[in-house]
């Protein structure tokens, strides 16, 4: 199993700066050549890009839900062992009239990481297409990237229904801009600020939108922007951003290899490595991703779904118990 490319630089510590730089450069070139075959076709929005594809959530087992829904009766030791209730039954709602309304206290259908990096001409965002229902990989064609206007895209991890609500809000804003018809459109920075206010406001009402959002885009003046907003209203901007597991698995890669003047090919290669790591290590992930890019002048492009090559024929997988003395 070839060592990941980046670990090679780590072994050469204490070298003079120039040599290290050159080795890095060579490594990057090797990297991009290897990945060149896997650059996905980044085309203008296909039919897949025209909206999320989450199936309507029909609740047919109302009777069954009533038993499991009440959290007082059955306190699960492990969240995964309790079947998820979908809609609160009416009798429960009547009983709780005098109590504070409980809203999204836990997410149901969730998306995992969203990644975004800046490159030379703009920004690149990537995520997988999974809508997980707890541990079940239930919806496998969920597009978690929403195109707001020609300058901005928003990606979401967390509760998919809350993301659909947020997409509606953003679409209303864009429609308003269209109706004004005065040449002003919302820039990525403005959309980020707006979403911060929305999410913070909802958190203050103890009814959060259970999402970690990534806002990325290039404004009409050519400035790239990437910002993140969490479900508590925490927000920040940076050259590279990741949510959920991507924070732990992908950001170290970005810190090491992302530069604001990367070419598109380099950026795609870096993104694909980050996605591959997520697929290897994050249990609720699937090998089906999309890339979305916004570049100055060319607007928004969302790719078709693609899969990455992965390697599972490790010797340790073939004979798992070989070195496991005393285990079964």
């Amino acid at each position, binding site marked *: 199993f070839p060592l990941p490319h980046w670990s090679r630089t780590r072994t050469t510590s204490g070298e003079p700066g120039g040599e290290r730089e050159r080795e890095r450069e060579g490594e990057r070139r090797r990297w991009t050549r290897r990945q060149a075959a896997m650059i996905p076709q980044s085309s203008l929005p296909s039919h897949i890009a025209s909206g999320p594809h989450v199936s309507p959530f029909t609740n047919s087992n109302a009777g069954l839900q009533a038993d499991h829904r009440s959290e007082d009766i059955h306190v699960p030791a492990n969240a995964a062992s309790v079947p998820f209730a979908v809609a609160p039954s009416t009798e429960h709602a009547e009983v709780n009239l005098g109590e504070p309304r409980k809203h999204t206290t836990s997410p149901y259908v969730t998306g995992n990481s969203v990644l975004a990096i800046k490159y030379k001409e703009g920004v690149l965002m990537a995520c997988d297409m999974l809508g997980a229902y707890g541990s079940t990989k239930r919806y496998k064609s969920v597009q978690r990237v929403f195109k707001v206007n020609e300058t901005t895209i928003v990606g979401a991890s967390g509760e998919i229904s809350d993301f659909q609500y947020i997409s509606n809000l953003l679409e209303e804003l864009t429609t308003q801009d269209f109706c*004004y018809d*005065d040449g*002003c459109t*919302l820039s990525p*920075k*403005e959309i980020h*600020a*707006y979403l911060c*206010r929305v999410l913070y406001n909802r958190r203050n009402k103890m009814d959060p939108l259970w999402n970690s959002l990534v806002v990325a885009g290039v404004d009409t*003046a050519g400035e790239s922007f990437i910002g993140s907003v969490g479900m508590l209203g925490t927000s920040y901007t940076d050259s590279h951003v990741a949510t959920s597991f991507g924070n732990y698995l992908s950001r170290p890669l970005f810190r090491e290899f992302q530069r604001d003047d990367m070419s598109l090919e380099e950026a795609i290669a870096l993104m694909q490595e980050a996605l591959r790591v997520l697929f290897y290590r994050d249990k609720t992930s699937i090998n089906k991703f999309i890339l979305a890019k916004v570049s100055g002048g060319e607007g928004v492009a969302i790719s078709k779904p693609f899969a990455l090559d992965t390697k599972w024929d490790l010797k340790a997988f073939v004979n798992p118990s070989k070195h496991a003395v005393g285990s079964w």
Partner: protein
Amino acid sequence: MFRNQYDTDVTTWSPQGRIFQVEYAMEAVKQGGCAVGIRNKTHAVIAALKMSQDSDLSSYQKKVFKIDNHIGIAVSGLIADGRILCRYMRNECLNHKFVYESPLPVARLVRDVADRHQVATARSWKRPFGVGLLCIGHDQTGPHLFQTCPSGNYWEYYAIAMGSRSQASKTYLEKKLDEFESCSLEELVKHAMRALEESCGTRGKKEDGKDAKLTHHNCTVAMVGQVREE
């Protein structure tokens, strides 16, 4: 205009298709102190003549207001109505800045204000605003100059004057229109002030106690543009 049987209510049309109350409100604007506005590719400037009850004894009434770092207005007519609009505009700008962290585009603000004017012309329990605004602002689409009117209409201009004796100012602006395009901010301000001076007349103090010359007491100038820190 003469009194007639269709001018009692703002909700009454005349047979010729006019609403006289709204037109009377526009008269109030025409009687107000003169204000002049000019804009070119980089800046927009307004100059306004302030009135006072008696130029020896009383103060001069403030009629130019800063709405936000990038927007300002000059008011002509019932200044009290103008202050209400000023408060509304400042509130809108602040709200927008809070939510979107960016300045409110000028055209949208003026449109909102114009819509407010229109509401007052279509309610039997209200009266039209007796004020015209000259609104200058600078946003991502460049500098702008707008005029609003009690009827709820608004127009964008390169140069305009409104208020009493504004026709003389308009004549000056029309003559010099080609020069505004490429002149500097200082030149633009001078043009605005010269246009304003046209409306003062050249004789000495007039019978009604109003000034005949521009002084630093009775003239206010405001400007927006891209070079300064607005």
